[in-house]
């Protein structure tokens, strides 16, 4: 492995204003049994053309974070504090009607399972046309033409015929292309993709990741990609946030994270992945993710952590920069990597 950063990484212009900026977000769920925090102290910024990956295991709050970015939190969940800015617009201050104007236009979402996210009783062309007409005020005819164009943009084979088909008539890969076309049809500044390739076979995943990277390059879109898969992160991220039990535990540029992970959880995750070319016993992380309604005192990872001390189970470690641009929330960060 060479020590220099290879040219495959996207160069992000740090002087450009973020397309999406989140500050001190806290999301709570009110359930009958009581309310609890699912995401806390979440801050992030994504610039045009940049890909930020949020990675973590089930229940870490990554999907809740994604949904909150489009004000799509389910009933019972709400943003308790913090701000979400898309460009100059404060998303949380908008009326629902104004939020609908922004959603799909300046910020759009790609869901994990296109079969449930797409409308089963509308053709894919009609769904895309509806979005274009809603946001661009086009005629039905022009909307349809734009829909076919959007499907061509995602390299849908036989775009004109496919536009007239229903989601169930398409293969998994084509459905995900249709959803990407729907997300991109109004050329949004920000795309939030929640596990966009998790339901797909590996060869189709490669196609979809390649497609997303190409489209991002063409359009200069800022992408927030939510995933549980560190290999996908290695493939497309510029920056990475690792989440555990509703909080950021580590944040870094892609090469820094993979070269020298600081947080014991990140290190554990990397050792736990069986990967092509890897050998030896997997380091498993003992125990399981704690339920969010019953988090331990102090650092939520402490009960599973090999480095845990008395301080860890008493005080929550703050997220601090240990190297330029490389943040970790751990009392016992060791710098040898």
């Amino acid at each position, binding site marked *: 492995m060479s020590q220099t950063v290879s040219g495959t990484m996207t160069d992000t212009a740090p002087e450009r204003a973020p397309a999406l900026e989140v500050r001190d977000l806290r999301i709570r769920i009110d359930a009958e049994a009581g309310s609890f925090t699912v995401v806390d102290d979440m801050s992030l910024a994504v610039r045009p053309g940049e890909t930020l990956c949020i990675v973590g295991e089930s229940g870490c709050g990554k999907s809740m974070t994604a949904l909150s970015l489009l004000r799509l939190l389910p009933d019972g969940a709400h943003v308790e504090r913090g701000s979400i800015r898309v460009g100059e617009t404060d998303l949380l201050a908008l009326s629902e009607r104004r939020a609908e104007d922004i959603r799909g236009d300046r910020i759009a979402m790609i869901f994990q399972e296109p079969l449930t996210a797409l409308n089963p009783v509308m053709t894919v062309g009609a769904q895309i046309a509806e979005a274009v007409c809603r946001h661009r005020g086009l005629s039905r005819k022009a909307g349809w033409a734009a829909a076919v164009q959007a499907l061509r943009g995602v390299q849908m084979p036989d775009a004109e015929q496919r536009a007239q088909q229903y989601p169930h008539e398409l*293969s998994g890969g084509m459905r995900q292309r249709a959803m990407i076309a729907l997300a991109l049809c109004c050329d949004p500044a920000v795309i939030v993709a929640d596990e966009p390739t998790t339901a797909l076979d590996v060869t189709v995943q490669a196609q979809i990741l390649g*497609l997303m990277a190409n489209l991002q390059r063409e359009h200069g879109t800022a992408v927030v990609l939510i995933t549980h898969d560190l290999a996908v992160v290695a*493939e497309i991220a510029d920056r990475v946030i690792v989440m555990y039990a509703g909080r950021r535990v580590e944040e870094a540029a892609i090469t820094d994270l993979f070269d020298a992970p600081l947080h014991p959880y990140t290190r554990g995750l990397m050792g*736990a992945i069986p990967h092509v070319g890897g050998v030896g016993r997997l380091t498993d992380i003992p125990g399981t993710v704690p339920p969010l309604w019953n988090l331990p005192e102090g650092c939520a990872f402490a009960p599973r952590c090999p480095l845990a001390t008395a301080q860890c189970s008493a005080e929550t470690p703050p997220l601090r920069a240990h190297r330029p641009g490389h943040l970790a929330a751990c009392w016992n960060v060791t710098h040898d990597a």
Partner: protein
Amino acid sequence: MTPDTSDINGPVLSVRDLKVHFPIRKGVFQRQVGTVRAVDGVSFDIGRSETVGLVGESGCGKSTTGLALAGLVAATEGKVMFDGARVGSKTGRDLATYRQRMQIVFQDPFSSLNPRQRVRDILRAPLDIHGIGAPAERPQMVLDMMARVGLRPDQSASFPHQFSGGQRQRIGIARALMLKPDVIVCDEPVSALDVSVQAQILNLLNDLQAELGVSFLFISHDLGVVEHISHKVAVMYLGKIVEMADRQAIFANPTHPYTELLLSSTPSLDPRKRRNFTVSNDDVPSATSIPAGCAFRTRCPLASDICAREAPPLTPRDGTRLVACHNR
């Protein structure tokens, strides 16, 4: 695990020309209008204490192969041999004997355990059914097995919903091991689990194999997992094995163009080794209309005339592998 093995080095399980075809029926009279060749002539051997990985994309027939071997779907054709002796009809007494030697662990640890049974009853049922051990000894056998798979004895009266996903998969593995089978079919046993828990289960399977000498048919779509756990790997595409070899041979030197495609599509864990994904549009053909000749030819960069005419047989190459390709 059976003492009467004449040839200790021979395969414990041999599968020959296994076929599972499903009829497609349509209309009022349910006339058969076609056939899905889910598994179409699959042969392989599994040795003692050996793990054979069966890998491929959704719809390739890998799970159906596992289900047919576990006796959960009827095979259309083919034979299955334990220690070289053909297994007779999978009915009645024969089936009971067969199941004792061949068990299965399912992908979804939530739906594959009876929610109304306590763990100790789930684990005891196989002993009762097959009359293994004296009834008074069975509770202890259950507790021993729980300890072996990393469950606490005081959890034996709990119900499945009281366990996490990883622990439930441990219950599923314990249930499969109760009869001391020769072979366990593991059908995507870690796909529903988080990576940190997945690693626990993979390590457990490796430990159990070293301790008990059990063999695994490990079915997975995840090449990383397959490489980690398998001694031998078979790659399936649309009902057929297209390449089979030792793990190192498959991963260091893939020969079939489909194996190459799978490996090149798998992301590496190294951000400096990003591949330029070729954005092609090719989709796996439907299992109801598999292309004539070689099924992979519609996606294959090497496809030539002969590929459309003749299905390539699985033939040995340089003594290390079997490959079904005209052009390799």
